């Protein structure tokens, strides 16, 4: 049973992956608070750790080309157990959406609309997103390339603009922090932006690709994504140096420092535009995935009727998640990576192993 019948192409899939990672790369404060000037190393470690993980996702995609994650779970475990795990995934996706949504709200509040209540910002955004979700996965992914393009051009422009303020000394000393910090940093970077790619398993049926193309596009998108993360973090370290950890939005501060004559100052609006666009993409995607997951678990005929209700739930839920951004930051550093490990690493791995043991999928081999 396919709930959403729209198809997306390989290139769109690739840029979706990139966009997805990019959108979290810009709120790097979680990481920079812990690994400081060595954050870029943590990113590299994270990439190394995640390569096998992405390979795992890719294998699951190739093994079950017509199934989404919930269907895989039901196939691999029995329907009942699968459904139970599926419900936990539904919670995971909804929580992810809500988390990103509250990020979006607090970011907009911090940078653009200081006195506007969160509710207004979030509800406005949610309505637009609900509209986007209604048209299915194709609509939003067809813009991924555009968003990636815009994000990259803004990124390159920003690097060029702060070139005169870069101080490479800021990267020193390397490997000065306790080892546990690197472990923690790597863990954060591999679960928060990279591991969230597990959501892609929900749109497998909408991507009709050959085995080779899946690998190619998945890793291509991932590479573009982590390069962005690396560039953003390195740029912030090089410009801000030891002040990096004290800011909640290092990238914003970096861009604020751009000052080439009086006319070319105050370009942080670029950052705001980029981040709103990317976050919009990511949340819409997650929103879509949440709705599809619920629809899949309940075996509904169409997912469209669930959009608004799910949206309302996510909106309400996002207000209860954290009492303050401080809690959010603390939890993102300490709690979320461990929690997400279950959904992003352990569960897919277990599924893969059991599927291999049970020699699934059976009839697909023919």
């Amino acid at each position, binding site marked *: 049973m396919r709930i959403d019948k729209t198809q997306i192409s390989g290139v769109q899939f690739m840029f979706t992956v990139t966009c997805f990672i990019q959108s979290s790369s810009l709120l790097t404060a979680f990481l920079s608070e812990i690994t400081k000037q060595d954050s870029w190393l943590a990113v590299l470690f994270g990439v190394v750790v995640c390569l096998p993980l992405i390979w795992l996702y890719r294998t699951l995609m190739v093994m079950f080309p017509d199934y989404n994650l919930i269907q895989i779970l039901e196939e691999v475990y029995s329907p009942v157990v699968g459904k139970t795990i599926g419900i936990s995934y539904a919670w995971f996706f909804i929580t992810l959406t809500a988390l990103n949504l509250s990020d979006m709200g607090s970011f907009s509040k911090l940078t*653009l609309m*200081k*006195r*506007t209540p969160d509710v207004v910002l979030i509800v*406005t955004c949610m309505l637009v997103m609900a509209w986007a979700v209604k048209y299915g996965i194709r609509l939003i992914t067809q813009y991924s390339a555009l968003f990636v393009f815009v994000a990259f051009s803004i990124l390159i422009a920003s690097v060029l603009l702060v070139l005169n303020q870069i101080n490479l*000394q800021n990267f020193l*000393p390397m490997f000065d922090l306790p080892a546990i910090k690197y472990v923690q940093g790597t863990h954060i970077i591999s679960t928060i932006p990279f591991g969230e790619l597990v959501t892609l398993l929900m749109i497998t049926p909408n991507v009709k690709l050959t085995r080779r193309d899946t690998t190619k596009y998945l890793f291509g998108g991932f590479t573009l994504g982590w390069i962005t993360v690396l560039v953003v973090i390195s740029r912030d370290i090089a410009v801000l140096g*030891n002040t990096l950890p004290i800011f909640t939005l290092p990238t914003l*501060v970096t861009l604020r420092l751009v000052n080439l004559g009086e006319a070319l100052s105050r370009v942080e609006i670029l950052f705001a535009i980029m981040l709103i666009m990317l976050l919009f993409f990511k949340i819409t995607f997650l929103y879509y995935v949440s709705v599809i997951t619920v629809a899949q678990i309940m075996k509904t005929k169409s997912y469209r009727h669930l959009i608004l209700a799910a949206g309302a739930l996510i909106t309400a839920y996002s207000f209860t998640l954290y009492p303050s951004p401080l809690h959010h930051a603390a939890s993102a550093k300490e709690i979320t990576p461990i929690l997400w490990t279950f959904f992003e690493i352990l569960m897919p791995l277990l599924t893969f192993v059991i599927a291999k043991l049970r020699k699934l999928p059976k009839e697909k081999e023919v």
Partner: protein
Amino acid sequence: MIPRRFRLLAVFLLSLLLMIFLSGCWDEHELHTLFIVTGVALDESDDPEKMDITVQIAKSQSKSSRSGDTEPQENYIILLKNKSGTMMEGLMEFNRDSSRTLMLNHNQVLLFGSSLAKQGIKDHIDLFMRDQDSRMEVLMIVVDGRGEEALAAKLSQDRISGMFISRVIRTMSSVSSYYQVRMLDFVSRLLEETTSPVVPIVTVTKKGKMEEIKITGMAVFKGDKMIDRLSNDETLGYIWAMGDVKHCNVVTSTEVGKAVFQIIKLDCKRDVKIRQDGGIGVKLSVNTTLSVGEISGFSETTSEELMPYLVKIAQEEIKRKIMNSFETARRLNADIYGFGTSVYRKYPKEWKSMKDSWDEIFSDIELNVQVKAHIPVTGQITQPLGMKEE
């Protein structure tokens, strides 16, 4: 599919809902309800618990009231003053007492009166970092005397002294970026713990009816308290030691003549070493390209001898200035160069034990300055007038 009637109805009602939601306009503040702050000055107050806050506001000139060009200076700016314990309270009070809201986004300079700076400024700048309205690149300046005088100064060059100071500093920053101390730089220095921030110091002098604002050196901070100042000469030594200098003059005078060089490019490589005895040795290798700006005298030297001689005196002069300012720093026991950070970056392990006793180690630093100058350009003439042939 949702039946058409419901969809239409829904879209209509949802947009209605949106309208209700949106009818707030919380963030709207029209320009004519705002005061654009161009400078803030903090000064010591007679009440020890409080400080004097002065804000300078650029007054917008309504078109209809722009009667003539010869308007009195007072009309271009508004100065608001009050006394309060913290910055936030002060701002609240300003907003309460004035017809418009203060907008700090465009604040150009943050001035500290020298007496306040001597008491420590850390607590006063927290708001400027925390508040989203103000920006990290606001320039920090210490005023010799009271900060409000600088804001009230009537200048011949610019109507708004806040803008004037920021422009002067930005021009100076093309010489060396160390003239431009943004709040970010200041905070960065503070966070380094061992490094002493230096902040440009300006002096307001009377000149007829008008006033003049000049940079008269650098204020040296220890922690967040100003302890002393570098003179303009010492400042030159300081910025040369920091490297990356452009368009700066080196004035030398010997018994035989005077020569002024212009620095085209000056780089300073810094190399820190831990000495045998546990102290620190710093080697500064200055590599500079100069051009001859002006030469007078030297009538006794031949033209072949002249160039090597000029190079020599330039090198000596640069070295002397650097050493000079270093001696001052050592005397003040203020690590204005950030040598501590260099050690930390190079020897992170050893640093841990040194950090606490950095003051003693700093006063014991062995500084070795090597200057290498090139003079490829002599200007449009090759020799000064009246030089000996051969």
